């Protein structure tokens, strides 16, 4: 450990001079760093690999085993994103909770004291993965359609409706935001993941067994309210209202609360 060779500006600064000080990392640089942190560990790569494998597996399953009428390209497109929909929030959750559970936040937040910038970078990185995932799922879908034509299993043309792409993207973006929000509020990776997936399940059972709550659950339960975003055939005004209501709670309110907590809490 000999640091004699370390270069150093001379003389050493004794007071901070804002005019000559190195600039803070740009938001794009922070996003690149967070994107890299999501993909540079073994566990991170496994999650991404499972998403891609699930795309291929689901498309093959439908092409070869799907019922008549279920093998059209939009169906392939939706089915291929099953793994993406399930695991994208996990990427968001783990991205936040690792800062606390692995305690890498001690270094992250010492280098970037404005912690909300790190959180927004994590969100942006999640959105980039969502966009890339949806683009890849379109490619896999077309591969599946080609395979279907070659094996005489094809139904319908090549078109993927633009509004379906848009609502799927919206669904993914909201899922990333609420995943990050759960991670910020609960800190523990296990607790955050369990709560994130347990909540819609519990609310769903509640709505199914207690008749009086059934109507409310259509608005409150993200598992129900958000599902029209992943279905063909248009979204009604009421359904949009439910999406908006759910997003306001899970994507915005919890996110803001999590941001508040993250900015003020002690990093140890």
């Amino acid at each position, binding site marked *: *450990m*000999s*640091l*004699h*060779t*370390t*270069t*150093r*500006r*001379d*003389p*050493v*600064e*004794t*007071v*901070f001079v804002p005019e000559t*000080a*190195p*600039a*803070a*990392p740009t938001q794009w*640089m*922070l996003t*690149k*760093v967070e994107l*890299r*942190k999501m993909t*540079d*560990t*073994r*566990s*991170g790569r496994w999650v991404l690999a499972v998403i891609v494998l699930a795309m291929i597996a689901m498309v093959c399953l439908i092409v070869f085993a799907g019922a008549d009428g279920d093998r059209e390209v939009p169906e392939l497109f939706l089915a291929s994103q099953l793994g993406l929909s399930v695991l994208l929030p996990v990427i968001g959750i783990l991205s936040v909770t*690792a800062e606390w559970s*692995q*305690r*890498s*936040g*001690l*270094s992250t*937040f*010492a*280098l*970037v*004291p*404005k912690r909300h910038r790190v959180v927004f970078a994590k969100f942006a990185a999640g959105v980039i993965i969502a966009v890339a995932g949806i683009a890849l799922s379109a490619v896999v879908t077309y591969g599946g359609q080609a395979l279907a034509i070659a094996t005489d299993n094809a139904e319908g043309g090549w078109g993927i409706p633009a509004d379906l792409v848009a609502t799927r993207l919206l669904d993914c973006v909201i899922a990333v935001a609420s995943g990050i929000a759960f991670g910020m509020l609960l800190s523990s990776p296990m607790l955050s993941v369990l709560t994130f997936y347990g909540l819609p399940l519990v609310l769903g059972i509640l709505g199914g067994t207690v008749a009086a709550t059934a109507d409310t659950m259509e608005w409150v339960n993200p598992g129900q309210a958000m599902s029209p975003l992943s279905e063909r055939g248009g979204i009604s005004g009421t359904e949009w209202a439910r999406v908006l209501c759910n997003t306001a709670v899970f994507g915005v309110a919890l996110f803001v609360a999590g941001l508040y907590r993250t900015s*003020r809490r*002690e*990093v*140890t």
Partner: protein
Amino acid sequence: MIRVEHLSKRYGDHRAVDDVSFTCEPGTVTGFLGPNGAGKSTTMRMICGLTQPSAGTSSVLGVPYGTIPNPGRHVGVLLDASARHPGRTGRETLTLAAMLLGVPRTRVDQVLEEVGLAAAARRRVGGYSFGMRQRLGIAQAVLGDPGVLILDEPSSGLDPEGIHQMRVLLRDFARRGGTVLLSSHLLFEVEAIADRYVMIAGGRIVAQGPKDELLRGRSGAVVRAGDPAALREALDRTGLEVRDTHADGSIVVGADPEQVGLAAARHGVALVELRGAEDLGLEELFLSLTGSQTAEEAKAR
């Protein structure tokens, strides 16, 4: 330049840090000494904006740490070498930091070489020994070529060679005008590097200053008797100041040995040991200041 003014941190009723003030000047190494749990790490986290103080302020290079746009380029921080994602390689860990700092990637290989981690750079941090993680932490601290270093227990886990190398590094860093604050719970780890000391126990500063200044006015005697209670009574009756009582029953007295011997003789107390002030070194000062505090705390609990 690091300035800490009346910094306090309370957790419920517990005062982890209580009205701590000190200054670290450029060109000096300040040893931040105290037993485990004395408040060293909490103080350092507050300086770096990671813990909100309950009261008081701190500044680095004249401004609050959190207001520096790219703090890693001015202040090298190592707070806990084990706080790393185990799944990343050493090189990847530093590459992420280099991206945030805006320094060239070549700098990563340079600092890895300098701390002796070049061979292990492509191994995952999870497989590093604690000493290797300390080296990685020091590499990250100097990555942005800062003028200030804040290092929490940087020499724990290092082998003797590593400790020696770090002494050389930090002395060299201060000689070129850098400011260093490093903590330790072991005096010998910082004794060879530090110019100044800040001693903390139970969240409060118990002494601070350069070594000779700390030891000035500390002349006295260490005395031990077969009957400690009788000795204590003899000292009290003679009006001699009892500074501290050690676990082995020896008493540190603020008087010269002759006065202590006379007091004991007058009250018929047989002494087992009596020695002079020159034995009262930094180690004894450190132990007497921090040891008694923790003993009192233990009693209070």
